[in-house]
């Protein structure tokens, strides 16, 4: 399941905390129970990566077993199939970063056009693009694949990167940011000073909508990082696989070779670390983007 980033129409006023806060023990109990549910699989992962397969088979899944095999799993993950795991990781980075950067740039430019210019077709082009937000992207994946074949892009990184750079919601978001974050008077003043349109956009405008840029980039990056269906359909060469596809192939190929389940689980953990780190370090943009985007009173 994939979802679009959400920005919601809310009031322009900056968040103000309600004065009253309560800490009822009942709410604490609910929170602890919910935490257990959300963290259980991750805890299980942390336990499992210290085991080998027979321990995984025979010992209780929610507690550690002796001796530890964590180091073996780490070594195995780095060497399995010629160390291809880290190549997959690099691919995931490359695809997600490229998609994210291209999506952000193109959305920023197009959003700027819709926000600051009057031109023929402005209304209906925007409506068409906005309307497509509701077309499920996976319904497009197979047609995209067939098309990509016809233009000779199948089995190239472009087949993954380019379709993911199209982010109609990102465009909508950027338009809102331009509308609110970059007053038209500034543009007019700059024009009188003789600045070019590109310079106004690039040097004056972009810094003012930085929050929007980061939000669009983050969400495109996450969507691309998490994408499975598109690479599954358009890529055949396992050296080009992203992490999601590579791990799923490993998980499906246990016939006849000693199944490396605990190594695969370790791989799953390693594959979510980058996003977790990004989440913890960029958290404020992440959450910020959830509201500040749509301040279009």
């Amino acid at each position, binding site marked *: 399941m994939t979802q679009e980033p959400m920005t919601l129409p809310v009031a322009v006023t900056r968040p103000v905390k309600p004065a009253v806060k309560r800490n009822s023990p009942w709410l604490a109990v609910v929170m602890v129970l919910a935490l257990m549910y959300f963290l259980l699989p991750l805890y299980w992962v942390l336990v499992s990566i210290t085991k080998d*397969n027979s321990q995984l*088979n025979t010992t209780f899944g929610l507690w550690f077993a002796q001796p530890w095999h964590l180091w073996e799993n780490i070594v195995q993950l780095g060497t399995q199939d010629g160390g291809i795991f880290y190549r997959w990781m690099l691919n995931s980075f490359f695809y997600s970063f490229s998609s994210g950067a291209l999506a952000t740039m193109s959305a920023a430019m197009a959003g700027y056009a819709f926000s600051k210019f009057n031109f023929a077709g402005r209304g209906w082009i925007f409506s068409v693009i906005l309307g497509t937000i509701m077309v499920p992207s996976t319904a497009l994946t197979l047609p995209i694949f067939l098309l990509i074949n016809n233009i000779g892009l199948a089995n190239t990184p472009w087949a993954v990167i380019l379709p993911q750079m199209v982010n109609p919601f990102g465009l909508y978001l950027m338009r809102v940011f331009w509308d609110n974050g970059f007053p038209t008077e500034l543009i007019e003043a700059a024009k009188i000073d003789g600045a070019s349109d590109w310079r106004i956009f690039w040097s004056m405008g972009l810094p003012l909508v930085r929050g929007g840029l980061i939000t669009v980039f983050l969400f495109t990056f996450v969507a691309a990082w998490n994408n499975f269906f598109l690479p599954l359909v358009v890529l055949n060469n396992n050296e080009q696989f992203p992490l999601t596809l590579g791990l799923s192939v490993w998980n499906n190929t*246990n016939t006849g070779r000693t199944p490396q389940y605990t190594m695969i689980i370790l791989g799953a953990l390693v594959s979510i670390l980058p996003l977790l780190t990004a989440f913890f370090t960029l958290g404020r943009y992440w959450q910020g983007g959830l509201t500040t985007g749509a301040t279009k009173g």
Partner: protein
Amino acid sequence: MKLKQGMMLLIAGGAVAGAIALAQAFNEPKYQAAPKGEITLEYWSWVPKMEEQAALFTKQYPNIKVKVVNVGAGQSGTYPKLQTAIKAGTGAPDVAQVEFGYIPFFASTGGLADLTKYLPSDAKNYFVPWTWSQVSQGKAVYGIPQDQGPFAMIYRKDIFDKYKIAVPTTWNEYEAAGKKLFEASGGKVKIGNFFSTFAPWFTALAWANGAQFWKLNTDGSYTQTLNSAAAKQVANYWGRLLEKKYVSTLGAFSADFWNAVSKGEVATSMEAAWGTGSFAGSLEKNPGVGAEYRVAPLPQWKKGGTASGNWGGSTAVVTTQSKNPEAAALFAYWLMSSKASVVQGWKGAGVFPAASAGLDLPELSDKTSNPSKFFDGQNVAAVYKEAGKGVNTRFQWSPWAPTVDASFQKQMDLAVNGKQSFADALDNWQAETLTKAKADGYNVK
């Protein structure tokens, strides 16, 4: 005691067969000349340790490198990838592993090269005849047979010993053994596992009972009969065992399945020859406490019978996208027929050769290496060689294999969950597959 003697006899028999085979020289083909220049071939295969086997080829032909890629077993990986790559017109490997049952499907996509123009004219003489006919359509040859998958029964000798059960030779005895195990273990130990998501597994069992699922008529149309009396007998039988909880329905090759086998919760499994390699590879590090694995002939419907079926058995196909079809054909041919490669295939993955000379190789009886080593030195190749003799070799396949597999899973799931009888499951399997094949444009009755 008696069992042990039988075992010894079997082992001795294997040794004798090995000794006789030793006397014969391995009949290796005279290969065509290798193309010149530096060539790299890509080969998709899910056979374990295939890299080692392919490396032998490069040792022989240093200018041809082979990159082995595992994109997942059959339907859960290689087939969809291969099919989309063929459709895409790019991205397909030079050589790919395809099972016999999927040759018609891939041949009908137009993506497989006809190998006749790349192979010496006597190539077919080096393979077991029925395997060659499985890869041929008219005059065209779409793949090089790799292995056969005759069916036999892998069992846990220690479990049978513990519960004092003789190795069943008929399906009646098998059911009785299931009952005994069920009662003696309080339902914990199942006699076997029903692979409800693998149509080819069921097909092999029906095949052993004389079923013929597809027939290519002379007018180019097909006749499909998935619900013959023979097939229904097999389905009803397993349905009954399931109902009585004598067998489980763990996912084939899943972590659950291997786990149950190693814990001694599943006493037998009907497996093709390559299954010995799967068992050895998957359970090597975790065989289970006191586990002793053995192979016995497939239980029979008629006492004293020798019938068997076939599950899988693969080939190497060359795609029309290959830029080096000569080298690809040579590689495929060499890989399946040269002595060094055949021996490695057996030891690495239990690949039971389709090359006729391969069956007599003494290395197949080598007790000190897998798969036989895993079976405590039993000459498992000898058991499967016998099983191979009982396979009806005129079995034919259809080009709509993916539909057949998907429909089987669906109908069997309904049957396993008691929502329809097993006989109905076969009727619906037949009807549904027929409708879909027709809608896809196939001429089938």
